């Protein structure tokens, strides 16, 4: 399954893991903040509507 990376295994694997980690972190943070802001906006909208 795993291809033979030879003597550069560390190099290649660390490059892949660092990059994927960064990408994942970017996506996750983006979505978390998006959700939070969306929730805040909805509560605020309903409150404002209720108050007139």
């Amino acid at each position, binding site marked *: 399954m795993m291809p033979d990376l*030879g003597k550069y295994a560390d*190099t290649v694997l660390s*490059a*892949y893991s660092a*990059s994927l980690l960064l990408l994942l972190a*970017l996506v996750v943070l983006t*979505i978390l*903040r998006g959700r939070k802001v*969306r929730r805040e906006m909805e509560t605020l909208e309903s409150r404002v509507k209720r108050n007139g």
Partner: protein
Amino acid sequence: MSIWEYANPKKFLATTEKVMPALWVSSAVLIAAGLIWGFFFTPDDYRQGSTVKIIFLHVPSALMAINAWFMMLVTSLVWVIRRHHVSALAARAAAPVGIVMTVIALITGAIWGQPMWGTWWAWDPRLTSFLVLFLFYLGYIALWEAIDNPDTAADLTSILCLVGSVFAVLSRYAVNFWNQGLHQGASLSLDKKENVADAFSNPLYVCMAGFVLLFIALVFYRTGTEIRARRIKALMARERLEA
């Protein structure tokens, strides 16, 4: 029916809401496919050994790092000229994505450099100009964060983006003049002599397409978030007026 219609925040939210799932899925599929293809099913390079596999992350991220700045330049111009709020917010949304891409290109490059050039870092022009690009991103983001008033921030950051782009190009030339480099030439160019072998180029194209889609997805989503954040600010201000 002009594209400026999408500059209305509500319309923008409604439209992107519809295409978001497709964007997420297709970018994930393309990136996964490209990386798996590249990682498991390409041969080692005769000179670089298995390190050549890093190219599937390195080149797409470098590409997007530059293109993200370019997109910010365009949206900043649109804001300066036509004053569409969504445009300014899109620039704001793209900057963190761009800086992460820059960091990925720098990190993968540094890791790749260790076995190939025997050093993590060299002051090669291409590497150096990427570092300068990183600094531009940093300054741009810091300026957005430092200013309260969103319209002021949009105006200032877009002028910074315009002036900064000119100076970024200038630095590219300066750096080229200052040091001859170690780095690869443009291997995907039409100049066949330098070109990467076909075995690598196809999965590379797939990865590049995936990164482009991921960038679009992230920017759409983040722009939506920025729009909502602006609306929260405006709503709170309105409440204040009533109080």
